[in-house]
């Protein structure tokens, strides 16, 4: 009855070991299920494909800042570009780009109010703690002639949507 483990037969020890292993493995399932439960499969956080005004509304050389959609739309002579207005450091909304109308992208400047990261019009970090540049998004035109920005598709900062 009270024989120690050493005195038990090897078969008993094996069965006891198997019992412990299956007990621990059986715990793993519920734990993983509970962790997985906490990750949402669907979130309702607004659209990721943003439909803006018709293409003619944006004059060449203009930079439009969409506060609610948190994107910036550049209309340059080569076409349209769009980047996020969310700072990659800690997700504050950056200030609008400043610079003379029609100036080259590398002259433009935007700052983040939270920790002072600075970006140029190509999205590159010039100063401050931001770990990477601003993301640029794919721009297209809808059948009814409006600008469409797809925030799920990241593109190179130099990629233009030509009309």
């Amino acid at each position: 009855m009270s024989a120690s483990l050493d005195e038990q037969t090897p078969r008993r020890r094996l069965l006891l070991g198997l019992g412990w292993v299956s007990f621990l493995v059986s715990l793993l399932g519920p734990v993983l299920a509970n962790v997985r439960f906490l990750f949402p499969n669907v979130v309702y956080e607004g659209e990721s494909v943003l439909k803006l005004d018709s293409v003619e509304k944006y004059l060449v050389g203009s930079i439009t800042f969409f506060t609610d959609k948190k994107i910036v739309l550049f209309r340059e002579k080569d076409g349209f570009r769009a980047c996020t207005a969310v700072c990659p450091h800690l997700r504050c909304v950056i200030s609008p780009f400043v610079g003379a109308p029609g100036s080259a992208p590398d002259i433009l400047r935007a700052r983040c109010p939270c920790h002072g990261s600075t970006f140029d019009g190509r999205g590159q970090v010039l100063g401050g703690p931001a770990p990477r540049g601003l993301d640029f998004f794919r721009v297209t035109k809808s059948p009814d002639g409006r600008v469409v920005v797809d925030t799920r598709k990241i593109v190179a900062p130099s990629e233009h949507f030509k009309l």
Partner: protein
Amino acid sequence: MVTESPKETGRRKAVSWLTDNRVVRSIFRRGYPDNDLDRAAVMFSNFFLHVLPARTHVHSLKPTYTWGLGIISLFLFVVLLGTGSLLMFFYVPSTGRAYSDMKDLQFVVSYGVVLRNLHRWAAHAMVAVVFLHMCRVFYTASYKAPREFNWVIGVLLWGATLMMSFTGYLLPWDQLAYWAITVGSSIASYPPLVGEHIRTLMLGGDTVGQNALIRFYVMHVIVLPGIMMILMGVHFWRIRKDGGLSRPPAPPSETARGEAAAFSPHKTYMLVELAEGRTPMVDTQAPEEEVMSWPHTVFRMLVVFVGVVAVLSAVAYFFDAPLEELANPDHPPNPAKAPWYFLGLQEIVSYSALAGGVIVPAAAIIGLMTIPYVDRNPEGQGAWFTSDQGRRITLWSILVVIPVVLVLTWLNEHYAVRILVPGASQIWVDLLNPGTILIALFAAGSLYIWRRTGSSRMGALALYSYFLTSYVIYTLIGLYFRGANWAWIWPWQATGLH
């Protein structure tokens, strides 16, 4: 025999009628404890008192030893549970209602503003007092054997207190709340590999919205208080099991038993007499150094409780808890500041999010938890700063860190990596910033002192003082010296939080 006047007899009869009846006896079993036997019995027959010993060492009651910080933390927690439960009756964690519920508490609900003030100020006080308690325990070397594990529990309780405050911060759904949580949860996304998952888990999505609000609410009102109550239970239990509060080792007493008495087969033994080894209490205190916990300890606790409630009430009456305008996800306030106890981290985050969000907090928590297992010699237990040498090392450590931190801050303003090399790679920013440089300097400084004095306790004193001082300086910088775009300002130039 002393004769009683009729008035005294009447008083005694009245008291006895009140305290010595069937109902009271059914609750308390014994009458008012007016002799030492009953005073001991009341401590272990009362559910709420039985965590306390029957007798308390006088050293544990010295106000200048403990400053009552542990018990003040407990009472603040009790006040927070009470006020928090009441506030829940008028608060709905929905992005559409949360802010207007706050306004109702301020202007419509009777005493709503007082309860909210009490809750907010008690929370701030608890963050501060728990931290001071940790400093007291550290500087009196109370983390040493046999109390190493209780120190670890204490570090966990400190972390849980910060998380309680942080989760509560979002609930008013004002500008301050929204952007502090946006920044705070983004810091959580910086650990490599798991960072983004941690952030998703915190927010229940990708932005601070309804999912985040309900998650923070559930953490704040159920999960974290539950965890804290369990940890506090273990924390208090361990104080008893580890031999009461720490104190200087007693001089070897003459009555100490040398040889264990021979086992006699003709005697009945209690379980405690059969147990192997000794309890932590054996030979550590003499009866003449103890007082009855009833009334000496219990009464002091009552006085502290009344003091805590009185101070909180006065503060809650004169100062209203801040509430900014409704959360606006489109427009961060400038500067956007974290709660004050995270401002030191935010200052380092403004150099590098990896340094401030991952490297420094990880180093601090791992360092705190491993200190009792690294600094193992029993030197200095129960005495502030261990010795005159320890006092000198602590003072000099504090004095040395102040100019070092200020010079590094100045260097960073003028010669940061990205000022010298615009567009420099992030690796260099993460490696060469005041946060990581300070960690390296602190490690080197404390190792040098350990080597030089030959005492791990002196190294630990230096290390803790370095961290403490730099954290206080960075908090002050974040509070008073940072303005729009996190640029350096002087306190008199501050224009408020916009």
